[in-house]
């Protein structure tokens, strides 16, 4: 702890930041942030010059209308609103920056600056100086398009809802007037007002359906859009005729209600597509752009794309390997969990292969590139993922299939009815009215609503339980699955080794052990540190982490060591036990102080959830990259009978293919992303790698198996309700159409019953909520 004028800092970095802020008069930041904890400023050795390179500017920087430069950045380490306030303030006070606005939710910043007064690298430097970091992202990719689309829909929806609400208070007056009598001119005024409201809704908000119907026709498909568009238009035209001829009733309220309701469903689908591209943007920037290589013994920084086969690449502790290669010198532990799911780091030395996408934990290695970036594992996995998105089976909603025949049939029946009555001799007017009644009563709003409403309710019930369906049709797909494929590490187990057995041989100062553990990123160190659960540390006189062996430190003249049994044995400690599990032994000056045994624990409730899933009709199967012993042990414990172990990412995908269909796969790391994209339904736990989130169809926010059970149950229930709704609407049509053809129904009754059928469908769908409270 550093003390400075009565204030305490954890490190020189934070102290530096405080002084900087005080100079600029911004120390109210500490009050503003309230109880939010900050993280210490880390050493930034990144080369900032690249921000001023022309290539960089071409890709990320645009010129705004005044001729100033504009860039979009993502600011790292923001914890709360106060951080945003601080960054905005610092940037605004910087000479040369015209505008700096940071989004509180996704930490994306838009910065406009005068290139003659300040350089972009200087701006980034400023942000880093106060303890944050920034990297660029290209906002044009997917996101802007989706944002625009979303806004457009929302505006159309707002207009539709506005008119619906207003039309209703007009319509109610007319409903009463129908029974108690209303003067013709009063009725005309109200109807005209309805007409004024309905027109923009039909043509502006309803434009979505006209567009859809048009494209459908171009591809010779008569779908839902066509139905809605034609039904709404016909009612509209008929109502105009009624308005000016004074005969009959207007139905502008129905027109508007149809458009509004169905638009809501479409909007919700557009909404869910946005959250995805946010994660995608951060993923793209996770892959480091620069690589350090050795040229004639000197270090040089180049971009990932410039790496050539044969280049000698240096990776330092914490760095991600960007290309595949073979180790030339150095020795250290590599974290391959991204690729294999193995929580145990792998020791690599000269001659071993380094796979791109893995991270060096605690040592510096020099390796020779055997592939360039484009052909390396990391990049090809990512590309495969993007392409395989299209491998998903397209399952059409049943309603759309039905409606293809439905609308054409109805239109022909109506026309035939019109002809029939006209030829029968009742006159044009009556024939027209009867034909229109047929169309109105057959108007498949119930059919059109059957799926969207049930889906809507299902989606929100799912969201309340922490399940996010990315698209509505995934509800149907998940309801039809037969096989449940589970990844082991991170899905069935936590993926973090935890202490299961601890034995202390003697009393010792835990703070020493704590400090040693905190300086190591090794998962085992973290597991033991978590077990100790303490913030108390002391300053060590000496400390070193030895790759793949353990930790060594000096405190008050004594030498403390901790690590694997083999390591301590090397140092002369006597250890007789054979350890089956992962372990961490701690000793001092030749004496054993404690031993900790760790296991990657199986998540709570997994066994019960799997049993429940079996009752729902799915067969559980396990795939993992881990070794046979561990895999089978875990499978046995949770009750899975079919298990595939030691699988590479490609192997896992093949397992999915072998099942042929109806596969629901659950995973969490980059190592399963390929398999996830092959499965019919891909499911990722909420905290998984961003690539998986992009590929998944269903995201489980609660990160546990019970969440998955809920997802499947809701999917099946909702699908059942969709079928119910469809049946209801079909029965309704089957009964009423003959009645209409026979001339027993006047348009008023037709419209009323149409609304009634819609209500029945909606009401039935609400029952989904009751089932899943």
């Amino acid at each position, binding site marked *: 702890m550093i003390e400075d004028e009565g204030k305490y800092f954890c490190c020189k970095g934070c102290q530096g930041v405080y002084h900087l802020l005080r100079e600029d008069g911004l120390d109210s930041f500490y009050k503003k942030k309230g109880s939010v904890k900050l993280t210490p400023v880390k050493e930034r050795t990144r080369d900032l010059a690249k921000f001023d390179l022309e290539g960089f500017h071409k890709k990320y920087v645009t010129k705004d209308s005044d001729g100033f430069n504009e860039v979009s950045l993502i600011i790292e380490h923001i914890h709360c609103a106060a951080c945003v306030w601080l960054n905005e303030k610092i940037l605004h006070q910087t000479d040369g920056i015209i505008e700096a606005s940071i989004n*509180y939710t996704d930490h994306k910043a838009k910065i406009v600056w005068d290139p003659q007064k300040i350089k972009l690298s200087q701006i980034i430097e400023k942000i880093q100086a106060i303890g944050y970091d920034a990297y660029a992202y290209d906002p044009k990719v997917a996101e802007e398009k989706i944002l625009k689309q979303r806004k457009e829909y929302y505006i159309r929806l707002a207009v539709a809802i506005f008119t619906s609400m207003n039309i209703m208070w007009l319509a109610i007056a007319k409903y009463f007037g129908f029974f108690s009598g209303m003067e013709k001119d009063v009725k005309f005024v109200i109807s005209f007002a309805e007409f004024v409201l309905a027109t923009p809704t039909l043509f502006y908000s309803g434009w979505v359906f006209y567009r859809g119907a048009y494209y459908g026709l171009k591809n010779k498909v008569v779908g839902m859009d066509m139905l809605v568009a034609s039904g709404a238009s016909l009612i509209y035209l008929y109502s105009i005729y009624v308005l000016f001829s004074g005969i009959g009733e207007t139905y502008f309220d129905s027109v508007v209600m149809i458009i509004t309701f169905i638009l809501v469903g479409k909007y919700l689908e557009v909404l869910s597509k946005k959250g995805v591209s946010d994660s995608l943007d951060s993923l793209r920037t996770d892959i480091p752009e620069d690589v350090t290589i050795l040229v004639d013994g000197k270090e040089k920084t180049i971009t990932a794309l410039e790496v050539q086969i044969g280049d000698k690449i240096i990776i330092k502790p914490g760095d991600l390997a960007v290309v595949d290669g073979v180790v030339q010198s150095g020795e250290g532990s590599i974290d391959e969990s991204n690729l294999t799911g193995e929580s145990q780091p792998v020791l690599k030395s000269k001659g071993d292969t380094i796979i791109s996408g893995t991270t060096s934990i605690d040592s510096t290695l020099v390796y020779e590139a055997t592939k360039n970036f484009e052909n390396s594992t990391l990049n090809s996995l990512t590309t495969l993922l993007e392409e395989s998105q299209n491998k998903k089976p397209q399952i059409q909603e049943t309603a759309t299939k039905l409606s293809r025949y439905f609308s054409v049939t109805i239109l022909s029946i109506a026309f035939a009815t019109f002809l029939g009555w006209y030829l029968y001799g009742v006159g044009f007017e009556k024939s027209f009215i009867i034909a229109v009644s047929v169309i109105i009563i057959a108007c498949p709003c119930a059919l059109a609503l059957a799926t969207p409403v049930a889906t809507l309710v299902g989606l929100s019930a799912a969201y309340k339980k922490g399940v996010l369906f990315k698209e509505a049709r995934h509800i149907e797909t998940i309801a039809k699955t037969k096989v449940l494929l589970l990844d082991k590490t991170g899905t069935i187990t936590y993926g973090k080794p935890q202490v299961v057995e601890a034995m202390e041989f003697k009393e010792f100062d835990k703070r020493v052990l704590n400090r040693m553990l905190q300086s190591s990123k090794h998962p085992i160190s973290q597991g033991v540190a978590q077990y100790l659960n303490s913030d108390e540390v002391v300053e060590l006189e000496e400390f070193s982490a030895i790759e793949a062996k353990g930790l060594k430190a000096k405190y008050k003249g004594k030498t403390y060591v901790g690590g694997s049994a083999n390591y301590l044995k090397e140092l002369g400690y006597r250890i007789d036990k054979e350890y089956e599990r992962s372990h961490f032994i701690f000793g001092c000056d030749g004496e054993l102080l404690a031993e900790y045994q760790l296991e990657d624990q199986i998540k709570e409730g997994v066994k019960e959830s799997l049993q429940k899933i079996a009752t729902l009709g799915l067969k559980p199967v396990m795939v993992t990259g881990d070794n046979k012993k561990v895999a089978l042990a875990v499978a046995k414990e949770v009750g899975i009978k079919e298990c595939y172990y030691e699988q590479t990412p490609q192997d896992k995908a093949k397992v999915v293919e072998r099942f042929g269909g109806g596969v629901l796969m659950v995973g969490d790391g980059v190592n399963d992303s390929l398999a996830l994209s092959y499965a019919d339904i891909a499911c990722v736990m909420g905290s998984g790698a961003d690539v998986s989130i992009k590929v998944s169809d269903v995201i489980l926010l609660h990160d546990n198996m019970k969440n998955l059970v809920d997802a499947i149950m809701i999917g099946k229930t909702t699908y059942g309700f969709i079928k119910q709704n469809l049946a209801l609407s079909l029965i309704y049509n089957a009964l009423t159409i003959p009645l209409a053809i026979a001339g027993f129904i006047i348009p008023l009754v037709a419209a009323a019953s149409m609304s009634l059928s819609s209500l029945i469908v909606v009401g039935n769908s609400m029952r989904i909520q009751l089932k899943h409270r």
Partner: protein
Amino acid sequence: MDTNTLVLMISVSLFLGALGLVAFIWGLKTGQFDDQEKMMKGVLFDGEEELNDAANKERKKKERQAQKMDGIVEKDK
């Protein structure tokens, strides 16, 4: 009831409502609803200081634009 009164009442009500709708859509288009957190938390940073900052920002922008215009005029010469 006199139909003229009715027409007047309906027109005025709808017009007022439409004003509200237009205002809402304007807010949407200028991106005021985009950032949910900013909407909520932004209220906390609303003192005199912030008002001054906002005024300064506007002033700086205008200055820069004026300078840019001069710069262009200079170049043309």
